[in-house]
């Protein structure tokens, strides 16, 4: 049985554990999906998620109880992702020429040097993976705007509300993000046009 939002809010106002448990349960899938799309790493997504839960608890006093919980929770999630230190993003996800690519001793450098393995590597690093890697390397605001627009399918208006900035700024973030993504994928030779 689903508990009403008003009941959840009342319980949270009284600082009751059940209230926050219901609140977290209600939004955890949504929060996880945004965090995962932002980091493409389960560990990082869970790490950010923990931070989001704590921020929700700490900031609950500032929540306007006449409004809906959903935009408020989304805003906290988006801000936490954007402020999540780039250094914290899993090191394993960055492709370094000296990094091991197959949990063994073969580095990217070895594979590139060995022409027989290059094809396997190209298959492994397919377009989807390259695109995900490129999204992850975008500047924070551009990354979040692109995710909300293309993966969550939100309008410029909704994104502006969630990111707490004007629509024009959102448009700039998205256009700049796309431009950077396009340049990266062209550089990697994804499209032989």
């Amino acid at each position: 049985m689903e508990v009403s939002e008003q009941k959840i809010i009342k319980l949270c106002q009284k600082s009751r554990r059940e209230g926050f448990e219901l609140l977290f349960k209600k939004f955890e899938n949504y929060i996880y999906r945004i965090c995962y799309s932002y980091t493409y790493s389960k560990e990082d997504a869970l790490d950010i998620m923990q931070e989001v839960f704590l921020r929700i608890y700490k900031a609950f006093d500032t929540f306007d109880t006449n409004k809906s919980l959903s935009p408020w929770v989304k805003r906290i999630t988006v801000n936490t992702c954007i402020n999540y230190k780039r250094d914290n993003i899993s090191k394993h996800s960055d492709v370094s020429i000296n990094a091991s690519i197959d949990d063994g001793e073969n580095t990217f450098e070895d594979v590139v040097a060995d022409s027989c393995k290059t094809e396997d590597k190209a298959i492994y690093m397919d377009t989807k993976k390259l695109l995900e890697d490129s999204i992850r390397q975008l500047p924070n605001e551009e990354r979040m705007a692109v995710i909300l627009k293309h993966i969550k399918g939100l309008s410029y208006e909704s994104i502006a509300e969630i990111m707490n900035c004007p629509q024009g700024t959102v448009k700039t973030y998205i256009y700049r993000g796309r431009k950077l993504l396009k340049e990266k994928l062209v550089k990697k030779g994804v499209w032989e046009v």
Partner: protein
Amino acid sequence: MECKFNSYIIQEYLEGTIDDLEKVLFEEHMKECKKCRLELTHLKLLLFEIDHLKEIEVIPKDVEFIRNNVLDEIFNTKSSGFEVKKFIKKQKETIALATNFMNYVPGKTIAKKGIKGANSLLSSASKKGFKYGLKLIQERI
């Protein structure tokens, strides 16, 4: 011909938000400009790829673990004395373990007698010392 159209205008063209006049100019320009045609193709391909990136469908069980962990962290730190109780419990466990250990130390019986003997020796010595001290004080008075 010099190219005046940048990536932003091309994206507006793709989204259909470009100004009518600018749209006509851009379409005319594209007939001549290979660079802009390629840019448009690349952006179309990017939008196709990016719109096909699916959201993760399977939510890991760890989410539940994280939720419970956070709730424990929030609501346990609020109840004062929890840490002290935990500490005392740990101390009791340590003492119990040490006692058990002592039961298996070789020569335990001899050590036990020795400790008892030392106790009685100490008590008789302290009694004698006390009596002697009292006697000295009484003499001085």
